[in-house]
């Protein structure tokens, strides 16, 4: 049987600041290597998101300048479709700014509140200091598997009751630098502050997302064939050992 997946890249125009497009490259590459075909649709500002048959949604990080353009567009063209997709268990990968904007709101350090999409029960408080640096966390649902990446955010994110964290911080700050946790998990949403970009040097995690999407679509437990991840593992290991010293 020929398998295929459809990816929706949301806001590739304004949320593309930290090399996060590398995540799309990783998803495509790892599918093609297994003979699974993949297509990527770009949904930019002014494009209306229709949930036809996307299997994976990706939303990356950006800077504050374009935020109100984005929020205006989201409320008209994207928000309800995003909420529907999340509630119907579609796989969502959200990074940094994308992670924050899926949440309920953002409050600046001088108490101005901005309402966000509200698809995820989290909120973010702006902070004067930035949390910047290489970081590492262990996946809570897959103990023994670690994510390495780079965080760069001034927002501190706090999780509501219906959302679990994605990882336990081993090195770095994570969501808020206070509770020792990083990212968020809700249904099939995987949200994190990790740039790097995230997927290329975390091949285990990339395959996890792909297997989840395939299982969703075809109703079968998928175990993707092994690839030669020499380059991926070396890049991953280098950061792990640097942060473990």
């Amino acid at each position: 049987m020929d398998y295929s997946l459809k990816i929706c890249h949301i806001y590739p125009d304004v949320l593309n600041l930290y090399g996060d497009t590398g995540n799309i490259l990783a998803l495509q590459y790892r599918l093609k290597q297994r003979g699974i075909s993949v297509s990527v649709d770009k949904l930019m500002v002014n494009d209306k998101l229709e949930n036809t048959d996307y299997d994976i949604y990706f939303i990356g990080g950006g800077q504050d300048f374009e935020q109100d353009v984005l929020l205006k567009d989201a409320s008209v063209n994207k928000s309800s479709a995003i909420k529907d997709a999340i509630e119907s268990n579609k796989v969502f990968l959200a990074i940094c700014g994308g992670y924050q904007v899926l949440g309920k709101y953002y409050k600046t350090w001088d108490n101005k509140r901005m309402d966000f999409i509200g698809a995820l029960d989290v909120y973010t408080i702006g902070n004067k200091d930035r949390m910047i640096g290489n970081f590492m966390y262990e996946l809570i649902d897959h103990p023994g598997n670690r994510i390495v990446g780079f965080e760069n955010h001034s927002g501190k994110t706090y999780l509501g009751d219906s959302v679990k964290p994605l990882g336990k911080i081993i090195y770095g700050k994570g969501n808020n630098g206070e509770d020792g946790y990083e990212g968020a998990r809700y249904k099939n949403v995987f949200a994190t502050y990790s740039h790097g970009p995230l997927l290329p040097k975390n091949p285990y995690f990339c395959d996890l997302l792909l297997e989840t999407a395939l299982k969703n679509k075809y109703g079968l437990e998928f175990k993707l064939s092994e690839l030669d991840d020499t380059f991926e593992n070396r890049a991953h290991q280098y950061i792990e050992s640097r942060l473990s010293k």
Partner: protein
Amino acid sequence: MRKFIAIVLSKLIHFILRLFNRGATSFPGLVALKIDKNILKKISKNTKTIIVTGTNGKTTSCRMISEILKENNVSFFENKSGANLKNGIVTEYVLNSTVFGKNKYEYALIECDEAAFKTVSTLVDPKYILVTNVFRDQLDRYGEISNILENIKIGILNSKNAIVCLNADDSITSSLKDEIDNKVFFYGINVPIYKNRVNEASDALYCIRCKHPYKYKYITYGHLGDYYCDNCGYHRITPNISVERLISSDADSSNVEIKYNDELYEVNINLPGGYNIYNALGSLAVSKVINLDINKSIIALSKFESGFGRMEKFVLDGVNVRMILIKNPAGCNQVLNFLSNLEEDSNFVILLNDKYADGTDISWIWDVDFEVLNSINSKIKNIYVSGIRKDDMALRLKYAGFNNIKVIESYEELIRESIKDKLDVYIMPTYTSMMDLRSIISKKYGYKDFWE
């Protein structure tokens, strides 16, 4: 008295460090500042300072201005070795003044990092400022692109007596015109310059005034070009000095037609690539605000030789080796644009470090269109990868479709391997790996080190 001690001690330290063959660019300045925190204010008073700042092109623009000043017989000093943060700049002023703090030269040509510009501008009273451009760069330091612009704006606001040269094609930096009271002189390119362009993200999709999407009559590269906003009317200002025509270009230089005061001039720029046309234009803009002779300045551009790491050429065991510094997506994409037009077989070398001066977040390499090199895949014999983050670089290249990637840890071995086929070698290092590589090249092959 303080000033005297600060100067003497700092000159002595510099001398001693040089005896031991160390770079000595920042430490003497640090010491001077510790002894007399007003040292820079005092010793910059009787010289006219030209500051060059912006994301890409500072060093090359400075070298071009340097050549122009020499050709016009102007007395000046410059911070040669690219030490563009505060301590390095102080060192340079100290070295070029007498022990009594009097500056020996009429002009000071200072390359200044965008964030350091904020502080340095309070200490130096610049007379002329050249802003090259703003692109995404070192986001681990700046957080956002808008912070880079903010730093430059504050620097200019501190420089009430300066004439400011701005890039008319850059919607980001041109917006400074309405935020400052200084006299402004614009430079820009009046025609598109590339037939094929790399795929790159724009750093300015939305109008900086009203956030509606920009439209363009043409784009030169990145977000640079003839932009306009049809919502609020913010648009490109016609430049005072401009390129009217690209006559020809090749791997070593460009020939352009420049217009100034309704006169046309043919200019040969002795460095390749569209980005160097901007550097040349910016340098000519500075020469005009200083009132130098335009014909002599044009001659300077044709004689110009690149600065270290900027298309610098070495001949090692008979092999042509060119070094081209990379630091951020826009700059790197321009280098790749140039390389993807090469005709001869060659070996490529990429070195990726992540120290503070390189930018600690290396994810920018995924915003670079390395895939564009696939068009000359058959001409690239090997891609060698090294530096602290060599594994990440190798992974990026694997994704870009290369299967001839060789990862080498030792720089000596790297140089030996890359020249052994006797093909041309193009080396793309980040800043600190370039410094290390150059040291090794100068020790083994007798080239001058960066401070010489």
